[in-house]
């Protein structure tokens, strides 16, 4: 299959960079949350 697309590099960067940034930020936030959740008593976790 041939995909005829103009500006392929720009489209790839325009989607790849945001998804990479969001993925990195998500991993960082979840890891930090997990570390803190282990240190803080469970009764302070109002969501669980």
């Amino acid at each position, binding site marked *: 299959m041939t995909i005829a697309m*103009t500006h392929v590099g720009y*489209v790839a960067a325009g989607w790849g960079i*945001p998804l990479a*940034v969001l993925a990195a930020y998500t991993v960082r*936030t979840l890891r930090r*949350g997990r570390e*803190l959740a282990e240190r*803080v008593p*469970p009764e302070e976790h109002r*969501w669980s």
Partner: protein
Amino acid sequence: MSPGHPSTSSRATRVLGGLSLAGLALLLGYALVWSPADQVQKDSVRIMYVHVPTAILAFGACAITTLAAAMWLRKRSEGWWVLGGAAAEVGLVFTGICLITGSIWGRPTWGTYWDWDPRITSTTLLFILLVGYLALRRIDNESGDAAQRGSRGAIVGLLLFPNVVVVHYSVDWWRSLHQKATITRLDPTIEGTMLFTLMLGIAVFSLIFAWLLVHRFRTGWLEERAEHAGLEQALVDRRAEAATGTAAAGGTSR
């Protein structure tokens, strides 16, 4: 994340996360394959399906931060303090993505990555304000508990949403390279599958934004709790040290 392991996850965030991922997969199909190329912009229009939603949500994050800053100044409650920081941090990520994607889109469309255009410049100012707000919060945070914190960060937080208004109307108030409103007018200049893809993008990135905001809020809440526990422990240790010192001094003098 396993449900039994301590984390910032809950049933609601797991559902929200699943919907976000499914929506993102559908959005990628529409944005990169099923929607047509634009007659003028060609395939670079596909970058708009990430640029426009992240811009809208960055502005939304600033609105939440300004509201939280105002409520913090009024009520001094921990929840507003944590919400302001969470919204500003997620907003900073979305503003950064908006600037990066706009720059990448600008090169094939305008022939340049950067221009001192009113919309781009005011959005960059918004990014700098968000960095300043988060930096000032760190200084304020060192002041101790909620009642003792300074208000410098909150005052910067109040400036965020007014700057969003300037960003939005900058294309009308000044001569701008940036195009004018596309979807916020009564007769949108985009239609069919392209309009659907853009709306889908706004919906999917809203889910991602909400999911990140909830996790970041809970992380901020835990940071507050951990810091409070650390301060209390430090006080207990200090008192124990002082008591030991007094007892030792008493023993020596006898």
